[in-house]
């Protein structure tokens, strides 16, 4: 797996969620993702950056353009130093939320993307990585 390009968007205020969406829309379009695939990636980016802002107050979204042989993909990594998630398995289950939201942030993003990894724990902050590969 090679990294072709990378960048980041700092999430410090509510308006940065929209900034993150725009950065990822540009990236997905540039990588040749179709309209629906782009909408999926951008929506996942929106949910995950909103989680960062809502639960941790601040954090960062790092993006990478990937190639794996013939495949092109996008990887988004969201990192914060917030309170962390006590039970990651529970958090990606349908309908689970402690933030007064709709509980669809993590499970929703997981459905929209091809791969998701979460590294978190109480007092350890949270790192969520998602990937989407372009269908040919």
């Amino acid at each position: 797996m090679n990294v072709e390009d990378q960048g980041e968007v700092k999430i410090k205020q509510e308006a940065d969620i929209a900034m993150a969406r725009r950065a990822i829309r540009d990236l997905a379009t540039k990588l040749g993702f179709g309209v629906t695939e782009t909408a999926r990636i951008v929506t996942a980016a929106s949910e995950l950056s909103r989680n960062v802002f809502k639960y941790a107050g601040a954090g960062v979204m790092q993006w990478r353009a990937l190639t794996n042989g013939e495949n092109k993909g996008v990887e988004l990594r969201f990192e914060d130093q917030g309170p962390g998630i006590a039970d990651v398995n529970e958090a990606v289950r349908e309908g689970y939320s402690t933030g007064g939201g709709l509980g669809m942030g993590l499970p929703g993003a997981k459905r929209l993307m091809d791969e998701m990894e979460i590294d978190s724990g109480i007092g350890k902050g949270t790192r969520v990585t998602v990937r989407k590969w372009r269908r040919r």
Partner: protein
Amino acid sequence: MGNESISVIRIHDVLLVTMPADPDDATVAALQERTLEAMDQNDVRGLVLDLSKVEILDSYFARTVAETAQMVGLMGGETIIAGMSPAVAITATELGVTLGKTRTALTIDRALDMIGKQGNGTRPRRER
């Protein structure tokens, strides 16, 4: 942001509210305020919420739309959501968002036809 504005216009008995392609949270919040204000200041049957330009409907946006429709309902008006693109409909469904019981229409024309009527806005069949 200048290009992120919500347009609210009155067409006869209906308010037509058009959302920009990718509204930030402040713009989405303004939807609720501007819509309810416009409902209060105009004697209309309800509103058509035009989402045809919208490129993404995340959980926050969807919740605000559903809540706004509910609030308009409490005020005595009707809301019809119109023009959602296939990509947005697919993505919103996969994400798991719903718009409650809000009525929807394929196009603005159909939505305008539906206001004040039950059913799905198809023209009534001629009686034999």
